[in-house]
């Protein structure tokens, strides 16, 4: 398998930008013709260049993504906000509010809600990645369907079996960890997620869910360590990790 090196990237960039002399260009084109892998790599760089040259499109995309995020957060806070409901319920809530203002219990109530809130604000189930191919495709499709429908209790033993047969499919471990989280088994999620190591393509996602698992298990210090690690990693979960760290501090 062709190794991605800084030198290779610089060669491809020079080729695509027309920065090579005639002889060098001819030699590089011969290499491309002789190597399908190199041809595909050059194509990826070409598409990347085309995609990222369009500043206006990128700026617009970022704007839409922010708007979508804000809309989702607004929807969530509408769903989670207390239901005033009947006058009787309203009276009881007012009475409860008055009580907590006059007791030590308000401090404990606030602390518990803050910890739970951070997890609730940031947790979203790990999405099904798409069509799972290979042996046991049907079994995998059934599990994916049940997981997507939120049938976590049902899915856990199915995932445990599949992971035994397909230990290389890390996405199954992420689905299982999320199923544990959804069924209040944070410690099981932690044990599973800690096994996914650096170098695994889903390492960063595993670390993110590990941080959330520690939050769920009420281990603030461990959650903080993991989100700091994620921030230093500077990947796709960085901004969410920064948000969590801000709340923990």
């Amino acid at each position, binding site marked *: 398998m062709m190794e*991605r090196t*800084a030198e290779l*990237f610089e060669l491809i960039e020079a080729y695509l930008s027309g920065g090579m002399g005639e002889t060098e260009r001819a030699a590089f084109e011969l290499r491309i013709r002789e190597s399908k892998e190199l041809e595909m790599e050059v194509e990826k760089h070409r*598409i990347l260049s085309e995609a990222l040259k369009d500043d206006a499109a990128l700026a*617009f995309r970022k704007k*839409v993504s922010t708007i979508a995020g*804000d809309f989702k957060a607004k929807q969530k806070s509408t769903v989670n906000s207390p239901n005033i409901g009947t006058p009787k319920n309203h009276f009881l809530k007012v009475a409860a509010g008055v009580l907590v203002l006059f007791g030590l219990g308000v401090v404990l109530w606030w602390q518990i809600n803050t910890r739970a809130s951070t997890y609730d604000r940031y947790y979203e189930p790990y*999405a099904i*990645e798409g069509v799972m191919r290979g042996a046991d495709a049907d079994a995998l499709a059934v599990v994916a369907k049940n997981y997507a429908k939120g049938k976590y209790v049902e899915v856990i033993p199915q995932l445990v079996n599949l992971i035994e047969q397909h230990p290389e499919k890390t996405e199954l471990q992420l689905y299982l960890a999320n199923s544990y989280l959804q069924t209040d088994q944070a410690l099981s999620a932690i044990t599973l997620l800690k096994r996914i190591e650096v170098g695994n393509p889903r390492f960063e996602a595993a670390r993110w869910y590990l941080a959330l698992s520690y939050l769920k298990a009420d281990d603030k210090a461990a959650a903080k360590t993991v989100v700091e690690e994620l921030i230093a990693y500077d*990947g796709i979960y960085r901004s969410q990790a920064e948000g969590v760290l801000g709340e923990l501090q």
Partner: protein
Amino acid sequence: MKNKQESNIVKGFLAGKEEVISLFYEHNFQKIKVFIEKNSGTETDAEDVFQEAIIVTYQKLRAGTLQLECSLGTYVFAVSRNIWMNTLRKRNRVRSWEKLPEISIALHNTILEDIHTLERLALYQKYFLKLGENCQRLLGFFFSGKRMSEIANIMGYSEGYSRKKKFECKKRLIEMVEQDPLYEELRYESFKEGER
């Protein structure tokens, strides 16, 4: 264009006005969410598809190649629907689907072409925006044509470190793209096209 309100929405889109896009999003997302959830999708699928549809529409408006014969909301719904049905087709979940009655055959076909063209670029742009801020800045400068010495100066790095960071950021971006299931499907489609 049917009326002034539609015209203002289109102008707001082109100008990237957040309040216009935000209102449009609020008024139109639910319909697409219902459609996608009824057709084997999740809320997350609906969010992804709707965002892509808005971006495809913006690109068309910017290029001046969109002749709207319906409301912008209807157009974006048609694009969303086609993106989703295209996704299901790739997953072998559906063979073909009929066009919406509100739009013409010609418009339906151009929507399909636009989706195909923009899918590859969209994948790279999506993951670029998931990179850390420094990576986005550095790669943004690089692809806008700035020399490495200039980039190093702006970022406050040495030139050698800038090159190293550029390589790492680009490598990570390509790896994230490769992990997306859509990447494999687009690659397979390219291979099939090449064979013709």
